[in-house]
């Protein structure tokens, strides 16, 4: 019934204990990683801005986040007079819980070499190095990110104050619009992988050429990266908390632990989203393996069962760095630019690319000429793209003539 773990098919005390242990380990690892992510971000950004950054608490300022957390813990917990009490208390959890749940579907390690399935032996039971492998797999990510919208939306609304409300309306509009592009680029991956389960998706990407970033032709990856950044409300899409316009965005009225939960959720989401990118496009815990001419590399670091985990961490670190890099270098988009990018560029582009991949699949199934199919489908897509830009231009012109509508 609950086919989330191979273990749970025959329930026993040991199986339950192992699953419980995995839950605790994944939870703790998630928290600790988030803590270091905050430190990492501050340190890298200060490096890029010629500052030193946190350096007082602990070696290299490593314990700075802990100190901040303790400070937040002892602050007064304010409840604004005009707040909606129940929703105000509920909202931080709606933001925080999805962040953690996404973490549970990411394969964190395991041996995928030589066609092995990533199964590890734990006290005589075989299991995956991932908390859950639900049949809906990646769809869980979409479902949870749609729940995370509520956290932000309700936080802004329930504060009973105008800046948070503005921030949250912006945020939810942004997250709902970019979710479509996110979903469509995931669909491209699913089309190539042929399965929904994250474990299966990792299993398919056995060598560099089969990594979905290459197998789906880079475009879905770029769209996913942009849409994910918008979904995370991170710079350059951080209109939610544009300090210059909105004080602090949806979380202005929050203090103490409730604020800490939002903060934690935000950084946790960054880490999990990097994990999702690695899982979907870069083979997750699969080692980098390629044979180009005479160069063979099988990615075995001679670390035994830790091999997959080390590869996974290395890949995730790259994307964490990329996110910090975005924040340090890119200016924030204006609101209409954000919406234009989401609706008029990313969604049509991801849909078009998805159609292209689907056409390739059909051609492969029916043994049609691959090149002819590619040529025809690209021509059709270009035609559609031309029509779309023409339509957008006409509507822009009309709007200019009629005057602003709102």
């Amino acid at each position, binding site marked *: 019934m609950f086919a989330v773990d191979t273990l749970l098919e025959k329930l026993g005390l040991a199986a339950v204990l192992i699953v419980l242990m995995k839950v605790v380990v994944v939870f703790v690892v998630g928290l600790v990683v988030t803590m270091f992510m905050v430190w990492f971000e501050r340190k890298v950004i200060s490096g890029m801005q010629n500052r030193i950054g946190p350096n007082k608490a602990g070696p290299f300022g490593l314990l700075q986040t802990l100190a901040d957390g303790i400070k937040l813990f002892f602050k007064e917990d304010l409840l604004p007079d005009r707040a909606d009490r129940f*929703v105000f208390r509920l909202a931080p959890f709606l933001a925080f819980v999805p962040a953690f749940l996404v973490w549970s579907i990411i394969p964190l390690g395991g041996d995928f070499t030589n066609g092995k399935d990533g199964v590890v032996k734990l006290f005589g039971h075989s299991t995956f190095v991932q908390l859950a492998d639900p*049949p*809906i797999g990646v769809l869980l990510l979409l479902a949870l990110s749609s729940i995370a919208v*509520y956290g932000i939306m309700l936080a802004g609304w329930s504060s009973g104050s105008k800046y948070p409300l503005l921030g949250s*309306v912006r945020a*939810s509009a942004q997250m709902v619009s970019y979710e479509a592009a996110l979903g469509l680029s995931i669909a491209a991956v699913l089309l190539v992988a042929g399965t929904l389960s994250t474990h299966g998706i990792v299993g398919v990407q056995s060598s560099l050429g089969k990594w979905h970033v290459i197998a789906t032709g880079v475009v879905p990856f770029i769209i996913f990266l942009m849409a994910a950044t918008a979904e995370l409300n991170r710079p350059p899409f951080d209109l939610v908390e544009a300090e210059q316009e909105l004080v602090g965005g949806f979380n202005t009225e929050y203090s103490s632990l409730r604020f800490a939960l939002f903060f934690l959720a935000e950084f946790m989401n960054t880490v999990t989203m990097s994990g999702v990118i690695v899982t979907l496009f870069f083979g997750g815990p699969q080692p980098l393996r390629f044979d180009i001419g005479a160069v063979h590399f099988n990615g075995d670091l001679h670390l035994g069962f830790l091999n997959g985990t080390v590869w996974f961490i290395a890949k995730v670190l790259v994307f964490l760095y990329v996110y910090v890099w975005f924040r340090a270098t890119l200016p924030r988009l204006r609101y209409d630019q954000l919406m234009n990018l989401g609706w008029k560029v990313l969604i049509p582009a991801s849909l078009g690319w998805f159609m292209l991949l689907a056409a390739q699949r059909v051609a492969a199934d029916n043994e049609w000429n691959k090149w002819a199919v590619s040529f025809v489908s690209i021509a059709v897509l270009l035609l559609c793209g031309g029509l779309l830009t023409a339509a957008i231009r006409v509507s822009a012109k009309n709007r200019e003539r009629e005057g*602003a509508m709102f």
Partner: protein
Amino acid sequence: MQLFVFICAAVMILIGAVGVIVRSHPVHAALSLILTLFGVAVLFVAQDAHFLAAVQVIVYAGAIVVLFLFVIMLLGVDKAESLRIDPVKVQRPLAAIVGIGLAGLLAAAIVQGRDTLARRGTGIDTADGGVHDSNIRQLANDLFSNHVFAFEITSVLLVIAVVGTVLLARRPRHSGASHTEAGTDTKASVK
């Protein structure tokens, strides 16, 4: 186990459904609706219809109720309404009659169909079949092969609805002097 899950989900659904009606605050009512939708998703999972559960959460909880909340927040009706005032006088007695009638119909249908309800549906056992993706495969087969025409017609219907909404939301271009005034006003404020 199945019974336990069913009872939990049913309690969730009922609490949510009652909340939608009883809570006087629109936002709380919308939140109760989400609780109901989640309960239904849990029931889907319990029946091995994982994909339906995911779609339920993504589409209904993730998009439609968000839209509800948007409208509630943007229109500024997010204040608790007094239940004392009744704008249309007949509405409440009429609602009571319709409610009782519906309850009676449901009860009659359940009593009539006792035997059918007790039997387990034929498709349920094969819904998952132990394979991870069989759910989505079966659904896709049904939607895109057997009922592809109905599916396409539905999407055309949706497009028509969108076009209609845009048409309704647009102001007619030559609706008199008041329009041009408003137009220049907004133009000025935009600039």
